């Protein structure tokens, strides 16, 4: 599984990184973060709706510290690895959904793009182990 590989990779990064790991909230068991739409290798037209799926954990507002729940972050064309010891960055390639949104309207330039979801805790930190989706590649016509 590609996503399992990613999780392993992220976990490895997490283990290598310093003691701050301890502060990351524990992820739920058998969680799966995934794209309901679009699917990997889809060709589509912009703008399109991107829907986020999450199994075995809940979606809540950023700032709400309920156990076993978090909020979505969508990474567009991000290649650098996730740093588990920092809040998930906020910029034009790291979109935050702190109001508990589970879908968004994307308007991407034509061409190839990668999309990946990362679940963040109340303070925007990734979970431990990180709850991330498979990184999908789409083509915008």
């Amino acid at each position: 599984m590609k996503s399992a590989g990613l999780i392993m990779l992220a976990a490895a990064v997490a283990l290598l990184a310093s003691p701050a790991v301890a502060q990351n909230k524990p992820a739920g068991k058998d969680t799966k973060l995934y794209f309901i739409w679009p699917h990997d290798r889809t060709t589509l037209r912009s703008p399109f709706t991107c829907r986020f799926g999450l199994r075995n954990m809940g979606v809540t507002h950023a700032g709400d510290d309920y156990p076993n729940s978090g909020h979505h972050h969508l990474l567009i064309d991000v290649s650098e690895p996730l740093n588990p010891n920092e809040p998930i960055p906020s910029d034009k390639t790291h979109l935050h959904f702190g109001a508990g949104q589970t879908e968004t309207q994307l308007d991407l330039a034509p061409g190839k793009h990668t999309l990946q979801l990362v679940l963040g805790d109340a303070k925007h930190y990734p979970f431990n182990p990180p709850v991330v989706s498979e990184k999908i590649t789409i083509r915008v016509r």
Partner: protein
Amino acid sequence: MGEIRDFKSGRSQPDNPQPPGNSIPRRLAAIVAGDIAGYSRLMQLDEEGTHTRVKRTVRDLIEPTIGEHHGKLVKTTGDGFIAMFDSPVEAVRCSIVIQQNMIGRNAAIARDHWIEYRIGVNLGDVIIEPDDIYGDGVNVASRLEGIAAPGDVFISGGIYEQIKHKMVCGYESLGDKKVKNITDPVRVYRVLPDAAAYQRTRRRRESILLTLLGLAITIIAGGVLWYLLAQPRSKPADVAQAPPSPAASPAVPQPAPSPAPAPGQAASLVPSAAPTQQASPQAAPSASPAVSMPQPEMVSLQGGSFSMGSNDDPSERPIRKVTVKPFAMGKYPVSVREWNACAAAKACGFTASGKDDAPVTNASWSDAKQYVTWLAEQTKKAYRLPSEAEWEYAARGGTQSKYWWGDQVQPGHAGCKDCGGDAAAEQPVKVGSFKPNPFGLYDMGGGVDQWVEDCWHRNYQGAPADGAVWSGGDCASHVIRSGSWKNDARYVRPANRDNYDTNVRYPTHGFRVALSP
């Protein structure tokens, strides 16, 4: 009422000029049927008065509104009308406009003299005659109108399917309804008009009709506004611009359609209240001994025209000329010390940690609003968040280059990831650590992200040119400016803009205050 219901069976048209030999012209149309609830009662009450008022309503409201929505008024009867539209969206919009206007028209008169329309909208294939239309589609529309409550718009399933993704409106499903003389049950939805649709129509129809609409309320609102203006001068702008409480239901994208003047106008009232010369001397809030609290240091700006936006990102287009009125801008972002004075007064939501001289971080837009509201109350000065245009004007410092210091990244000018700063730091460095821009403002770019008053719009299409807060848009998120110490140099550009959820805190988000003269 009866007349509408009978138009199919009733009038044959012997003098119809349409050549009967040809096949009858049919077409698909959105049909709007409306009639006045309790017409007979109204006529009994005041026959001539009612008649005049109904005629006036049709002439001043129904006919022009249908025209504006590219519809055709097919016919009017004593108490009702039938109109035909090519577009279901326009048909429903038109119906909402009529209903909203009637609320305003009724506001000034006694309850039992109210003229209230019931409106039904249906999509159907109709037969077109020169001065009437016929067919099942028309009948269903008038049946829908018949079951609608006064003031309501009922639409059929066919219309709903066409408009559900195109109109920002609430729809309440009423299920399948059996209507008189129609075999199949009709799926019925009640339209719950939203504030945004109402605002749009208001803008389109700046007529006397609408002056009537809020006359009573405007007087009250005007009184309140005047009262607030006479008190701390920042309040009216705040009140008009956004709901002051950080209530967490951002579903409705616009503030309620209050008949008070638009935010821009409210803001512009303020400068006219005070002579412009007062803007020139440096505002030195520390000199006012009445309040012993840390107040942000302000720099007075003369205002003027500048080119807002850039071609570096789609959100910054189109570049346009914007004229900003004189105002004062915080010399630095609001510091932890300044913020914590508000927190100590229990007026701000959290106590900030970190060094006193560092900018406050982890503030949501609503947090920032709480601070400026509190500051304005305490100081009796018109403190507020800057508008997006004011922020960019101040950040450019009279320059039109990529950065305020030129087109190349140079160390020592801003705190950002690749400007020589420490992006791994948990806190930004203290305010004023980098060079000030030509206006004498520090950290306009880099350091902390800074909230402004405006709701998010994805580009400048339709943005105002007077430097005012751009009302409307997606108010579930607001505009952030400046970029933070964790972003790269692209985000430090004065034209750069981004957005974030209104009520969500993030560790790189702070703000600075503005002050109306």
